């Protein structure tokens, strides 16, 4: 931290004198480069309309009471108060975290193994496997959810058919909280494991082979070099995948919605935060409240990302 600060003070000794002139300079600079600014403006205009405005408006809306048609009335912090006292909201938070844990940990684990295998020299047809593992990621979510709903169907599903072939009793998967969460998690794993594997693969390929060669000379086993070389070098990549899957995991919506409907199925086992937001805003017409839930979710994701960062990054600092 101290290094760049020193550098800046060295380059900028008389900053207090230069500031006013620079400000004037900025405006003329912009005017001078107006064509370039115009050229990059489409992104900023689109972002302002479809990104910035909705963000600010939802902030405003979260303090209002609005059914979507009638007049908005100021609601103070009532929306937020309702949110933190609504057991269904906390249930949705719990469900989301559970589904996230059920899906992310096996997913990243499998992705790492697949990436390691794809990188290994003894595997043939590697491009074929790379495409094969990545393919689920480009499928339509709704179609996938419909297929999975027939796999997990309570009485006539594929899984129950297999169970019955082994003489076991059918399980009413989608009539149980854990069954719904399992089905959703498997859907997430199936869809995203290849994506993460490809990212890990890129990470693996960027590790210099000299490190492995040096380890080999020193007599390290394959497992030792995996844990001492591969994992530490992959740490930033792992952090990236953990954070992206956290953000994705916190926003799970389509899978439970198509699988078990707007209420999240039996006892709301599949009621995730976004599904809850959707239901409250678009089914029950509490648009102000929906916005408040959106901001609640924002805080939650920020918090969890911070924890992730601490865990993944902090552990690294101790090792090195």
């Amino acid at each position: 931290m101290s290094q760049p600060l020193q550098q800046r003070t060295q380059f900028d000794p008389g900053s207090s004198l230069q500031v006013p002139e620079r400000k004037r300079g900025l405006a003329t600079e912009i005017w001078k480069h107006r064509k370039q600014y115009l050229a990059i403006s489409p992104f900023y205009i689109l972002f302002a309309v479809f990104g910035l405005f909705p963000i600010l408006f939802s902030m405003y809306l979260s303090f209002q009471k609005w059914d979507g048609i009638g007049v908005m009335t100021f609601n103070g912090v009532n929306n937020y108060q309702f949110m933190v006292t609504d057991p269904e909201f906390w249930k949705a938070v719990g469900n989301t975290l559970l589904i996230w844990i059920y899906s992310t940990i096996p997913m990243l684990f499998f992705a790492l193994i697949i990436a390691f295998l794809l990188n290994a020299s003894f595997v043939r047809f590697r491009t074929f496997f790379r495409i094969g593992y990545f393919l689920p990621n480009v499928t339509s979510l709704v179609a996938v959810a419909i297929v999975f709903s027939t796999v997990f169907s309570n009485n006539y599903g594929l899984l129950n058919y297999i169970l019955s072939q082994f003489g076991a009793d059918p399980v009413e998967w989608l009539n149980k909280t854990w069954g719904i969460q399992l089905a959703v998690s498997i859907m997430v794993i199936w869809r995203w494991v290849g994506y993460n594997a490809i990212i890990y693969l890129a990470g693996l390929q960027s590790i210099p082979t000299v490190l492995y060669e040096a380890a080999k000379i020193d007599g390290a086993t394959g497992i030792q070099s995996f844990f001492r070389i591969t994992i530490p070098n992959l740490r930033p990549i792992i952090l990236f995948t953990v954070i992206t899957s956290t953000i994705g995991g916190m926003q799970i919506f389509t899978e439970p919605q198509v699988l078990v409907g707007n209420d999240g199925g039996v006892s709301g086992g599949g009621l995730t935060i976004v599904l809850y937001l959707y239901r409250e805003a678009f089914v029950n017409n509490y648009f102000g409240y929906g916005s408040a839930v959106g901001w609640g979710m924002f805080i939650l994701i920020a918090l969890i990302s911070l924890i992730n960062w601490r865990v993944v990054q902090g552990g690294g600092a101790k090792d090195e």
Partner: protein
Amino acid sequence: MTKYRALSMCLLLLVFMVTGCSSGSSSNSKVKTLTLWYWNRSLDDNLINEVQKQFPGIRINAQKIGGDFKSKLKTTLAAGGGGPDIVAFNDWVTELFPSADRFYNLYDLGAKDIEKDYLDWKWQLGVTPKGEMIAMPIDTGPTALFYRADLFKQAGLPTDPEEVHRMMGTWEDYFAAGEKLQKALGGKVKLLDNIGQVYNQINSQSDKVYFDKNENFIGEDPSSSMKKAWDLAVKASQMNLLANAGTFSTEWNAAMNNGKIASFVGAVWSKQILMDAAPDTTGKWRVARAPGGDGNNGGSFLAIMKTSKYPKESFEVMKWLLNPDNQETSFKTLNLFPSATKALDSDAMKNKEEFFGGQATGEIFTESARNVKPSYFGTKYSNLNGIVNRELSSVALEGKNPDKAWKDALARVKKELLR
């Protein structure tokens, strides 16, 4: 200079992209264009095309709105202008009562004159507590008991619709018969589909459920059917009479086709769904008057938006589209069950149906439609109904204690009412 022109063209294009490029349809001063929003199978397309012949000088711009119709309508209302002239509503019409001023009061346009031609209870569903009529009836969804005559026979129960109704006039008697049926068939067949369906059907037979006309919650009042419906639904679950198949789910379809469910109470429009779901059971089903009385599920409406420039013309078109003769036509083409009393008397109701073993089910549904009690739903009906149904499914599927579930449901309902 040319560079600037190209740049400004790009910007202009962008502006059009952003604003959605609203096409200003320049209308001929003599031809009045009425825009109609409806969803597939809510109105007969041939009839809509005929409007132009019927009313020279009026052009209908009929737009089938797919996907979530209600959300799209609400978005349009929130945006303020640019909506259709005539718009279809489903049974969520009560949710729009607080925004009644966004629609023309059809009574002001002459709806009083035709009120007597329609089923009163259905007509009243489109009238706000203040007496403004915002929506005009299209079709209705009278309910009845669908049952498998062959399974009833095997279990030694009556099979003739009248005898079935006599024996199973109340829900309690129906459950008792169901117990007998399940025992006789060795436990392979369930009487009913799911707990929510029992609860909802009992409430649909009642004139008081969650709210009175002043929007006060009456669920705990003895006159309300809420607790009664809850208790009966829980009883059906405790007697193990439910197949726990979600209504019209793939599970439900399969159970119907495989003969795992012997009966259910449903609206007239479930006929089509059942016929599609269970082709292997053709000829085995019958329809009788429902236990506990007649009820209604769903049914849609037409309304005129306040933004319309031609309310009078819109009303005339609506009146024509929904007149008894055209309702009869729509019944024949799309199975839209009429809301006009005269159409209920038509011969089309006496058609024998192969799927129902040659029974003319129209006669049963006609009787049902005439006996539905007028009721007021209240703007938060579906919110409350969702809460109770969620608790009920916990009872049926996860063995939640019914008393605790009832307490939880009431607590959540009261919280909901304060929002």
